[in-house]
């Protein structure tokens, strides 16, 4: 299965009436996770987040694809 780059956010049990809601829910939670942190603390949170999610995904071929895309143009 290739890396999914289509909109894919949802929350089990939650009903959405608007297409923009699940993505906005996620983005708000993401920004909220960093609230009141210093830049250094935020960088640490981000690193931990990547590791946790990477392990959850597991499939290293997908992770390689994501890592490649993330690095492009930076």
């Amino acid at each position, binding site marked *: 299965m290739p890396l*999914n*780059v*289509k*909109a*894919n956010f949802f929350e089990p049990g939650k009903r959405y*009436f*608007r*297409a*923009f809601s699940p*993505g*906005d829910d*996620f*983005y*708000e939670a*993401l*920004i909220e996770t*960093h609230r009141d*942190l210093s*830049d250094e603390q*935020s*960088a640490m949170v*981000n690193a931990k987040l990547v590791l946790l999610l990477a392990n959850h995904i597991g499939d290293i071929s997908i992770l390689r694809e994501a890592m490649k*895309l993330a690095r492009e*143009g930076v």
Partner: protein
Amino acid sequence: MLSTYQYPKYEYVQPPEQKSGTSQRYPVVVVGAGPVGLAGAIELAQSGVPVVVLDDDDTVSVGSRGVCYAKRALEVLDRIGVGDACCDKGVSWNVGRTFFRDEEVYNFNLLPQPDHKRPGMINLQQYYLEEFEIKRAQELPNLDLRFKNKVVSVATHDRGATLQVETPDGIYTLETDWLIVADGARSGIRKMMNLEIEGKIFMDRFLIADVVMKADFPAERWFWFDPPFHPGQSVLLHRQADNVWRIDFQLGWQADPEEEKKPERVMPRIKAMLGDDREFELEWVSVYTFQCRRMQSFRHGRTLFVGDVAHQVSPFGARGANSGIQDTDNLCWKLKLVMEGKAPESLLDSYSEERVFAADENIMNSTRSTDFITPKSKTSLTFRNAVLTLARDHAFARALVNSGRLSVPSFLTESRLNTPDTASFKGDMVPGAPLDDAPIKAAGRDAWLLDRVGNRFMALLYVSDPAALDAATARALKALGDAPIPIEAVLVSPAAGSAPEGLPVFEDYTGRFAERYDAQPGTVYLVRPDQHVAGRWRAFETARVKAALARATCNAQ
């Protein structure tokens, strides 16, 4: 003085109280003739409730304010008789372009969904909306619109309120059974009543300019994040009527509002944005800060708060007037039933509950947009820029770009007025949902569903053939109309034909109704006067519909 618009000046007429020297008592007084107070007054007057409207001014909204009026507000405006005027004058747009630095990262086309009467939104200067509403208000004999009548004090009590009103002829007193407060964000009444409004201010300033453009420019919405001509900030360009363009420049909190308003500061900003050769003229410039906040409750006894006085949002997503117009649409039918003694006052608490729910959703959405547009920390900015960079190539990131979400009505799913489903349905028309539109034929003529429902309770029964409806059901449906709170029954059918008992038929000739409402023969919807679903079933039964009506009017035991 604007070059494209002349502010009307409405005539002040000495109020009867000041002519005769005696105080009078009225059933309903509305304070504030902004877009929201006017919408409420028109709706009440149209439904037969006499209304007095007091406004301290004698013209429409001055300067740059509301621009975008969304589909739901247009549908309400249709019911109060100003939808066509707004849509004829307003500008429709479909294409939106989003730029990041010097590149377009993506564009979208809001192609309106097929088979809805109204588009997702139109752009129109607020003064036009108010002018059209005032014209409509002045056509109604039971609507007494008083300009240059400023409320200077209010005393509320359990029979209503006593107001002191100042006019060019001095101060007079007026009594009212019910008071609707629509005096805007800076409300004096809210302060006089010592009521709080809580929330947060965004630590940012925006330069809002209205510009008349000589040269052609596409009717599109352009949004820039961090553009070269205005580094580090955002800029929005929108077209309004009469070739007037709205430009919003984010300035940052440190900006000096007085300095920034000066033409010698504004002109170079706009020139840099448009490129030097385009000719334009400044119509109006202001600098705003925005806040998101609301009152705890929109009802205080016999005083009801609607519009900006009750809730304010940042303008990203255009939810101010749009939501205020839905406040009054929610309130008016309830107030009328309570005034007629057909529903208990607790029905008005449901006004507050439902519109607080909607206000919270609006505040949430406009806060999210504001946070995306103006990130408050280095990390948020990094995430924001990462989203914009990925958006060029990846659909998931485009969905996260938030330069303002279209103002859409709330699904009042938590309302105590809803009767929960007992059968399963596909689609979105759940109890509490705002009705979806559909093209229909009524009496052989092309019509829209949303032009034919509303202003009263209605039962929509879907049948495969209207002529084949059995006599007993037809009589039972007809009998729903003979009650203190009548329900008008209508058949919806893919087939044309006339129904027994003279029941009206909506011909669902495109099948959109069946699709959007997941209707099968026997499916019934009970629809509120404000076009929200009260309840629905797979088979018609008088008792169930009546129980749902009782629940939707707080009359259930």
